[in-house]
């Protein structure tokens, strides 16, 4: 295991120290709970609080989206493991200003359970918490079982929309409605070309044979739809685009935000090659790209592969996507 770490069982602790030091102008760590990252902008004005959380190892997600006009507090778990109920609860308490809290997180067993328990605790404090559960990963379950689908990189768009809406002064209901609308219009799929290793574990989480790729892989290495021969960027893009496009489906005349994320070890160069092929497909389908993001936005340690995410946008979602934002993972200047 060729890694730059200290004690493999303390990677999250050690990472958080460096993260706070580097981004102290954007975020800080809660004084009492070292697994709670809070935006310095969280209480700049009275608004609905935005909370998320999840396992570590997905940098910039989740803490990298904590900051101005996006997520206000993040519960930090171990590598690929849900944060504690207490951390979610502490996040909720930290950002509630009486307008309630939107907890926007991904559909994983652990997160579902821990958020549920955190909400029960918050209820005792009379804090109103509502959730949107990201389930954008088309490959993780058939459309008839949407409630089983996992959340992947589409979560970023959900946070962007929810955060912008909250910043606009919306009520909790409105924030939840917008974030839910974002999610309902978002679909993703991933492809894996190489595994990753949890440091405390020391050996690859799974294996992908040279010359093959796993189509539909999850971002902890959850099984995909099928293992295929490694194809060209064009072929991979064709397959992924058509799976994503046909699920909602997106149709001619639609406008979409496209987000390509590398999973860790895939050079950004390849992501642009891949993006160009996706864009060509969308051109042919008459689907217009409103905005696009290409880069390591939601990774899985050093996994080799990419995810493709699309969100169909209307005026409300466009307005939210255009909002200025300042976080480690995404900084955007309003034009």
């Amino acid at each position, binding site marked *: 295991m060729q890694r730059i770490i200290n004690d493999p069982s303390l990677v999250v602790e050690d990472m958080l120290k460096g993260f706070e030091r580097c981004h102290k102008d954007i975020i800080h760590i809660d004084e009492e709970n070292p697994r709670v990252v809070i935006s310095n902008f969280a209480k700049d004005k009275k608004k609905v609080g935005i909370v998320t959380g999840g396992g570590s190892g997905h940098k910039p997600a989740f803490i990298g989206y904590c900051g101005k006009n996006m997520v206000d507090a993040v519960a930090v778990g171990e590598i*690929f*493991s*849900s944060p*504690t109920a*207490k951390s979610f609860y502490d996040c909720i308490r930290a950002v509630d200003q009486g307008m309630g809290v939107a907890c926007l997180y991904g559909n994983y067993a*652990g997160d579902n359970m821990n958020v549920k*328990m955190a909400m029960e605790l918050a209820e005792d404090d009379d804090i109103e918490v509502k959730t949107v559960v990201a389930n954008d990963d088309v490959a993780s379950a058939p459309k008839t079982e949407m409630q089983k689908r996992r959340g992947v990189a589409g979560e970023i768009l959900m946070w962007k929309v929810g955060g912008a809406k909250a910043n606009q002064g919306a009520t909790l209901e409105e924030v939840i409605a917008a974030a839910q609308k974002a999610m309902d219009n978002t679909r993703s799929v991933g492809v894996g070309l190489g595994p990753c290793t949890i440091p405390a*574990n020391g*050996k690859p989480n799974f294996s992908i044979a040279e010359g093959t790729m796993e189509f539909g892989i999850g971002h902890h290495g*959850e099984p995909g739809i099928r293992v295929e021969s490694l194809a060209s960027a064009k072929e991979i893009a064709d397959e992924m685009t058509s799976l994503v496009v046909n699920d909602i489906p997106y149709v001619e005349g639609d406008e979409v935000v496209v987000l390509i994320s590398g999973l860790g070890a895939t050079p950004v160069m390849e992501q642009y090659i891949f993006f160009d092929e996706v864009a060509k497909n969308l051109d042919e389908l008459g689907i217009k790209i409103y905005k696009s993001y290409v880069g390591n936005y939601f990774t899985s340690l050093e996994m080799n592969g990419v995810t493709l995410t699309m969100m169909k946008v209307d005026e409300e979602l466009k307005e939210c996507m255009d909002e200025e934002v300042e976080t480690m993972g995404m900084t955007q200047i309003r034009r």
Partner: protein
Amino acid sequence: MEYVANQKNAKITLAIIEAIHENAAYLSEIDGATGDGDHGVNMDKGFMLAKERIQEDMDFSESLKVLGRTLVMDIGGSMGPIYGTMFSRLSRSLKKQDQITKEAVLEALNNAIQGLMDLAGAKVGDKTLLDTLYPATESYKEALKQEKSFKECLKALLDGAEAGKENTKNLVAKIGRAARLGERSKGFLDAGATSCCIILKTMASSMCEDIINE
């Protein structure tokens, strides 16, 4: 009437904690075969943290509550809420009684099963700790129905747990990390089922030694 005293009887819980601690490496090894090899580490972390918060003169039900709450609040992952809920449910059922009867134990076990199913969405046969807890409880229930002694009922719990755990070798993982392996998960024990077996067996043995017959 046969019973186990609730008052000042945290030693049962402490025995469970000790058993998990001793078996931590073994549990990780089992998890290593089909998962990411950290189940022992995860469990040990939570149980050792709870140990510091439990005094021997606590009520048994209170010590279970502390263990459950520690797991829920401080451990995270799936194991935190799952085992946390299991121990919290056991605690909630037992705290009503000063004298824990064999009937009360069944009620507590059923409550725990219900809690797990509500929370985790795991079903019997998915190759999880439920595949230890459920058959163990069934076996206990059967013994109780046959009006066996408390001791024999606890023995039935222990046997049922062991059989359930061993049977996970025949199951295909439907949930959690091992689900990645699909059919290839067959032939291996489930880590959670193994830790659950250790917990139930330790609890059963420890209670056996404590049965009062008045």
